[in-house]
């Protein structure tokens, strides 16, 4: 335990409350309440707005002057650095898992598919926001092209970056996977994605917080469950830090 400042009664009361909460946090009932709230938030958001309701889009003049990079901002791997320098000629985006027709697309093939451009706001779990113009392929097109199967319940994004020695990954359900603004972006503000923002390809999951927007995407995997992936919580930060899988708040 931390040593409590004894000079202040208020501090003592506050600390008592806080340590009670830390203990409650290990408690089964409290954990299940918190997890019920997370499921509830997802259900309420979708009931209020509709499953396919769009996040707000902005005018070009409303963009932030730059776009912050956070989490992984560089990848040490020599193959990645070589590809970055050459414009990713040998990069492949795989679409695999519970699909009828697995794909392995070059960046040029990704850009040849139907595109969507959107100027959206990126909200980090830490509290900051940035606005940028993204261009890329709606995930729905890729999933349809790969003939995703009925048994698929989640889409997992496999990434080229590692943090704390673990591979970054994220996952979303099929509602978000087929949302019109869920795109695999290759451009930011009219330029190829910079390294710090996830070159060559990153996800945009516009109704959720930044940690869901996987960067440096190598593969898109359709799965029935993410229990056996990583530590089973559906994403890197979910596994490592206990962040909520539904990041709509």
């Amino acid at each position, binding site marked *: 335990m931390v040593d409590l400042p004894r000079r202040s009664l208020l501090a003592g009361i506050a600390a008592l409350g806080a340590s009670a909460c830390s203990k409650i946090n290990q408690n089964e009932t409290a954990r299940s309440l918190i997890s019920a709230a997370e499921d509830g938030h997802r259900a309420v*958001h979708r009931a209020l707005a509709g499953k396919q309701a769009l996040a707000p889009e902005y005018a070009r003049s409303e963009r932030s002057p730059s776009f912050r990079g956070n989490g992984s901002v560089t990848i040490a791997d020599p193959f990645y650095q070589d590809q970055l320098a050459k414009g990713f000629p040998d990069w492949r985006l795989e679409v695999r898992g519970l699909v009828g027709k697995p794909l392995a697309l070059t960046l040029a093939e990704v850009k040849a598919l139907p595109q969507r451009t959107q100027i959206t706001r990126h909200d980090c779990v830490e509290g900051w*926001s940035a606005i940028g113009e993204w261009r890329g392929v709606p995930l729905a097109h890729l999933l349809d092209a790969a003939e995703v199967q009925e048994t698929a319940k989640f889409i997992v994004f496999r990434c080229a970056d590692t943090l704390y020695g673990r591979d970054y990954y994220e996952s979303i359900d099929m509602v978000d996977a087929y949302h019109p603004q869920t795109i695999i972006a290759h451009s930011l503000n009219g330029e190829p994605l910079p390294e710090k923002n996830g070159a060559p390809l990153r996800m945009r999951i516009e109704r959720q917080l930044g940690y869901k927007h996987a960067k440096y995407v190598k593969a898109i995997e359709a799965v029935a469950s993410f229990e056996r992936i990583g530590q089973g919580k559906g994403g890197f930060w979910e596994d490592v830090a206990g962040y909520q899988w539904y*990041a709509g708040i």
Partner: protein
Amino acid sequence: MASRHTISTRLWHWVNAGAIIVLFMSGLNISNAHRYLYWGNYGFDPKDAWLSVIRFPGWATIPQHYNLAIARDWHLLAAWPFGLGLLFIWAAMLANGHFRHNLMTSPRDWTPGAVLASLKAHSGSDGGARGYNPVQKILYGAVFGVLLPLMLFTGLAISPGFEPAAPWLVEVLGGRQSARSLHFIAAWGIFAFVVIHLVLALANWRLILAMITGGKRPAEQEAPAHG
């Protein structure tokens, strides 16, 4: 009905007090994640911040060390009793006449003379016989009518999953980072109210007892009061 506080008022008061303690302390932990506040829709560079917030010490936060995930879990959970409680107390106050009889001000209450008189008369007494004085009405009105709803609406506005349901809310508040700044300001407004509220209540501890048991209403108030 001779009690000073109805059961709905007392129930809400204590549930809300618990929720607010959890929300405030977990909120301070969340604030530590990015200690800069901005106006407008975006903001990430400390150079653009209108306020650089201090790092709140562990004893003031839930949990007692920096942990954004646990702090957010508690914050989002406690938001439910807070938000539903606010709806409940407003419905109850309108239905049982508490708002009309005790909290609604008349233009007369806002004059400097009335404010000064109530500050003078207040010292030490609970002002119970004549109900709330103008300063109390204005203060409670600001808390119920402005601070608590602002807390709820700014909280909803900074949720990207809620936004598609009411994009106008974020616009009305001046953008997402403005909503976040107002959320922070309203939190400290409530903190200031709680400090005044506690000091005055501790000066007359029978008032605290009355908020638990219901207390006894002064004789003059037993007959329905008009005006």
